[in-house]
């Protein structure tokens, strides 16, 4: 758990600034613009290693934009620009010397809608390895087994690894996407509302999985579901209109929020 003191100065409460190993992802004065519209305002906070950090906030508050800036998925959009910097494990993601391909291998991502490729389960898991040119059968077999076990999917699919991934159920597909992300052995896993299209049972399985995964990976999760944030995360950041309103341990945010807006949001009065 991080050493969160109740923030005294409202716009940017900061955690983990006193211990260096806690600054796994550093967001430094980060602003983001879609054309003329500013989506993120001067964010500054750090995300600790091997913990789950949840981004919450109403729609359009910029939490997904921030998440997708960490692995530069926003590059696909025309007319964007940014100020400030994001560092993952000490290297700036926007540094011209940082290769976006290797960056994305270090930072896995799981999307809102499960998006397995129309290939076999096996090929889905090793897609990241295939594109890096790793084709050794024994190595791939081992990684498939480990990744599927890591994603708690192995027992369900071990007998049909070469069937189409599209034959899986929605929850299984999302766990397959998680297996695909961890097959690259990333440092960070970004999850963009991973359970919003799933039923409660499948959601429960994913949440359990997140608990397991944080032993190995640093996880950042965007969610609309307050209970989910409370259940799975160690730290929670609340965004509103592109600004970070409050960032602290999940306990503090949910039981003792410093900001009246945070309180209003988590108690369901707006958002």
């Amino acid at each position: 758990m991080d050493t969160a003191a109740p923030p005294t100065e409202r716009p940017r409460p900061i955690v983990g600034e006193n211990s260096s190993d806690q600054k796994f992802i550093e967001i430094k004065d980060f602003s983001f613009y879609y054309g003329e519209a500013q989506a993120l305002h001067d964010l500054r906070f750090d995300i600790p290693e091997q913990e789950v950090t949840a981004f919450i906030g109403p729609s359009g508050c910029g939490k997904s934009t921030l998440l997708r800036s960490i692995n530069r998925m926003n590059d696909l959009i025309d007319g964007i620009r940014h100020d400030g910097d994001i560092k993952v494990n000490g290297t700036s993601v926007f540094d011209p010397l940082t290769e976006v391909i290797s960056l994305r291998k270090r930072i896995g991502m799981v999307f809102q809608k499960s998006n397995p490729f129309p290939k076999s389960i096996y090929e889905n898991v090793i897609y990241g390895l295939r594109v890096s040119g790793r084709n050794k059968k024994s190595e791939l077999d081992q990684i498939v087994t480990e990744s599927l076990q890591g994603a708690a999917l192995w027992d369900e699919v071990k007998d049909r690894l070469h069937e189409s991934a599209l034959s899986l159920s929605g929850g299984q597909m999302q766990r397959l996407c998680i297996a695909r992300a961890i097959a690259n052995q990333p440092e960070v896993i970004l999850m963009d509302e991973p359970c919003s299209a799933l039923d409660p049972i499948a959601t429960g399985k994913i949440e359990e999985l997140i608990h397991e995964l944080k032993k190995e990976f640093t996880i950042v999760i965007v969610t609309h579901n307050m209970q989910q944030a409370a259940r799975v995360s160690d730290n929670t950041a609340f965004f509103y209109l592109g600004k970070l309103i409050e960032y602290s341990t999940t306990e503090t945010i949910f039981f003792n929020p410093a900001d009246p807006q945070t309180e209003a949001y988590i108690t369901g009065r707006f958002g």
Partner: protein
Amino acid sequence: MNSRTSNKQSDRPKGETLVWLSSAGLALGVLMVVFLLGLIIWEGLNVFWPKAVVEVTLKEDSHYKMGELPNLAGVVVKRQKNTRTGLEEWQMLTGNKDAYGAMFKYITREHVISQSFPEDVIVAERMEYGNSIFFPVSLQLRNGSKLTAEDSEFLTRFEQAIKEVRNRYHEIHKLEKNTIGKINREVNALTIKQRLFEREQAEGKTLHEKDLKEVQERLAVLQAEFDVLAAEAKRLRAMQNDEVVEYRLSSGQVRSQPTGDFVGFHLPNQMGLLDKIGFFIRHIWAFLSERPREANTEGGIFPAIFGTFVMTVLMSAAVMPFGVVAAIYLQEYARQGAFVRGVRIAINNLAGVPSIVYGVFGLGFFVYMVGGTIDQLFFSDRLPTATFGTGGILWASLTLAIMTVPVVIVATEEALTAVPRGAREASLACGASKWQTIQRIVLPASAPGILTGLILAMARGAGEVAPLMIVGVVKLAPSLPIDGVFPYFHLERKFMHLGFHIYDLGFQSPDSEAARPMVFATTFLLILLVVVLNLGAILIRNHLRKKYATSTF
């Protein structure tokens, strides 16, 4: 709601009156397609069905008399009212163009006293002058004996004689085409060599006395071989005239013709249904597999089918990579802006350029520029005879590829945009590069859409005639673009094409009335070929759809 639906009048929601208009539009379209296809299929297949021959007896003083007898045998093709006189008129296919001067004869119904269906009338297909309709008289055999038509063996012997001459005909063809053809090719090559040597010698570069002597010796050997073969061909040809059939036309003339002039015969008025079906199938097969005769109005159209097929396949092979690569750059890599929008509009407009313009472009660019350059670089010894610097199947295919490339680009672009964002993002998030994402995820997912574009392009390309006329299609091609002669693919050769064949039969043949049924049959075949090619592409597309089903994206 319930009270409304129970009322019959409001079964149809208000404001849906245009449904009628749109459904009427569709119905009209379907009707026209069905009518057109029905007409083509009916008329096209009708050609091969044997029809009864009627012999009419005319009035003694009728001006329709073609000979001494007032009779006329033929197939009644059409019965119509003469718009001027108001009398019923028959169009009869009388055949015997060599005797009557025309294949058809119009007679007025009034002049016909009686009609009958003589059992022994023969319809014979000939090498020249179309069919002959006659009553047999006798067959002069090689051994000098004469077989009269009353003889019970006459028909079998006649059939045998025709079989013999047909076999000999193919033998002669093979001899001339393959054996003599081979000698001719070698002679040609040697002559070119000889000319080259002589030219260099005249320019004083090198002396080729020894080479020249060798060439001349070889030429002499070849000439000797040629003489032997030519004599053999001549002997075989002469044998074609050994046996002579004598026949009587219904109008009274008695004529005789060597059996070598005949292709086959049948007795239409004696045929049962099974015979007719057999005849029908045999003739369709002959139509599909044989070479044309008599200015294309008779015989088969195999070279045209083959030419169309090869051209369409070559065109697809050229247009697919070109169009897909262009569309990928336009859609995936180019910075979307005014320039790219302009390019896109230009591409769409290219689809509306008249096809003859592409033909002229193909002639100027491919044939004269590219082909001319190739000739100068690689075939300079054959000049001034052009090899690639003249129309050919390669240039025709490339011209059509240019013409159809907008279709493929537009379809590919649409297919690429339809690939869900989630699929691309998933791939990129796994650390794939943009090209890897396109190659492994986007292209497979858009393959069905790309193939749809190809299908449209093929349908347009296969049916195109105008540009082909100036970049390599000919009325009669002596050899196929792919054959057993090294190097097997002769892409510089001129070729025959079904679309051009239709034009040629319908508007350029000496007897367009006689060629009319063939026009329908050829059209039917062209449509069939396009359908077959499309079905092939559709099967591949469905297979890909199943393979890359993107249900969850």
